[in-house]
């Protein structure tokens, strides 16, 4: 039982990270109807910023950790907005496939740039312990303070996101664009501002995800975004692409299932296969995902 609970906690903290990344996929899909495959590299850059800054700060302090987290979020938001402005916006209005392939191009470009020795290089580097490190025991169950940080920060960010989306003017505009971009423009919504804001928000969450991931798996390198990025994409599809609660739920489920499978002796080698099996199953049985719904418009 303790073993199970232990894996559950591990799974939830991994799932919380998947959820943060998945939110960016799902929000961008919501307003632009395409999958931003460069999102995993925004996550990676978030971790890189955290690494670069964390080295110059004292280790093991709460304020240091929060500074690193905030800086990574701000830097990632800037990167996301820049990518949209420079690359996706000029392609808007062309076939979705063009944008999709370009997104893969941006993803590969960022990976390659960071692999250049002058920029970062291909060798993994150790992420500093920017937050205080403690082990907290409940009987046999051990929770690391980093897992607590991950779960707390992720939960807070998701609550803030909900407030932004449902309680602010910009959030209202985002929802209108997601429902019908042309109708939104005709009531006076500034489409470019909404799209930039969406990229900023989604990328900031991915940047936070990057730092939180690196806290628990402290090896930072240019390809570190690939696997978590793909899995978060699966999580977004599992929850229902375009649905914000869906992305959060999908991330938690996927992280938990993956960790439980990884923890069982017989199946542990299939850990990574699980995510993609889930993707295939979902696409076969319920393509709209758990919380997604297909919209039929009356003509």
């Amino acid at each position, binding site marked *: 039982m303790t073993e199970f609970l232990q894996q559950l906690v591990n799974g939830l903290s991994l799932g919380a990270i998947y959820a943060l990344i998945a939110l960016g996929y799902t929000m961008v899909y919501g307003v632009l109807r395409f999958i931003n495959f460069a999102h995993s590299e925004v996550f990676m850059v978030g971790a890189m910023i955290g690494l670069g800054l964390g080295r110059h700060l004292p280790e093991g302090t709460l304020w240091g950790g929060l500074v690193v987290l905030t800086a990574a979020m701000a830097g990632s938001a800037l990167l996301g907005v820049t990518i949209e402005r420079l690359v996706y916006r000029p392609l808007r209005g062309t076939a979705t496939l063009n944008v999709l392939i370009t997104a893969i191009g941006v993803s590969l470009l960022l990976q390659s740039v960071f692999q250049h020795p002058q920029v970062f290089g291909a060798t993994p580097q150790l992420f500093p312990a920017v937050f205080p490190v403690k082990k907290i025991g409940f009987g046999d169950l051990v929770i690391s303070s980093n897992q607590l940080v991950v779960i707390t920060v992720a939960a807070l960010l998701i609550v803030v996101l909900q407030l932004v989306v449902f309680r602010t003017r910009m959030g*209202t505009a985002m929802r209108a664009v997601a429902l019908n971009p042309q*109708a939104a423009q*005709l009531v006076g919504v*500034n489409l470019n501002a909404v799209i930039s804001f969406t990229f900023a928000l989604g990328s900031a969450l991915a940047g936070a995800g990057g730092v939180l991931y690196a806290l628990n798996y402290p090896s930072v390198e240019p390809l570190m975004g690939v696997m978590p990025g793909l899995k978060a994409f699966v999580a977004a599809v599992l929850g229902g692409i375009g649905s914000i609660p869906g992305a959060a739920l999908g991330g938690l489920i996927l992280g938990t299932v993956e960790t439980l499978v990884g923890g069982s002796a017989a199946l542990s080698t299939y850990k990574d296969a699980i995510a993609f099996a889930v993707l295939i199953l979902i696409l076969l049985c319920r393509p709209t995902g758990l919380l997604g719904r297909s919209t039929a418009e009356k*003509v």
Partner: protein
Amino acid sequence: MLSVANLSVSYGAINAVDGVSFAVPAGAIVTLIGGNGAGKTTTLRALSGLLRTRGGSITFDGADLTRLPPHEIVARGLGHVPEGRMIFANLTVDENLAMGAYLQHDRQRIAENRDYVFGIFPRLKERLRQSAGTLSGGEQQMLAIGRALMGSPKFLMLDEPSLGLAPRLVGTIFEKIQEINRSHGLTILLVEQNARLALEVSSHAHVLETGRVVMSGPSAELRADPRLKAAYLGG
């Protein structure tokens, strides 16, 4: 109030609108009529900034709108009830109307606009909490017009308000359109395939064919024109 000079819009190599010019005087109902693919919807979409123009100019209240994005055009008082209504199907009637007031900041004004919309379309008040996607076609059209009115427009463009409606409802919608024009002095540009109806309610009409204006004049005269009768009014 609105003047369009030499407007051209193209989709790739195809000129959907090719040098169209017309004017809409303040307080009038002007109609654009023509068959499928004549360029009527394209003209409206260019006017509200949803489509890029290739050439020509759009002047509204003395200001040039030609290169402005849609949200700035809406802010200047051009309302657009688009083809297919484009209501927010997942939102309630109430939320749709609230979205229509997106650029309005004066609470008093918003409340007045709501009362005004409910005065014209009492049905919307009865359906306030209902999801807009579950409304009938006629009610959706009312909602689309109501949503546009929530933005306090000075000028309203209506794209095929009769499309897909039962004949009885078409009459109702057109009465309401005239009412909006008379009671509020709202200038209206109406795009319609139902030429007979459009000519009845409008003061001036322009006939579009393959992206060009082929006939213009007072609606009463056009109604009597034998060429128009043969082509659009069923002889």
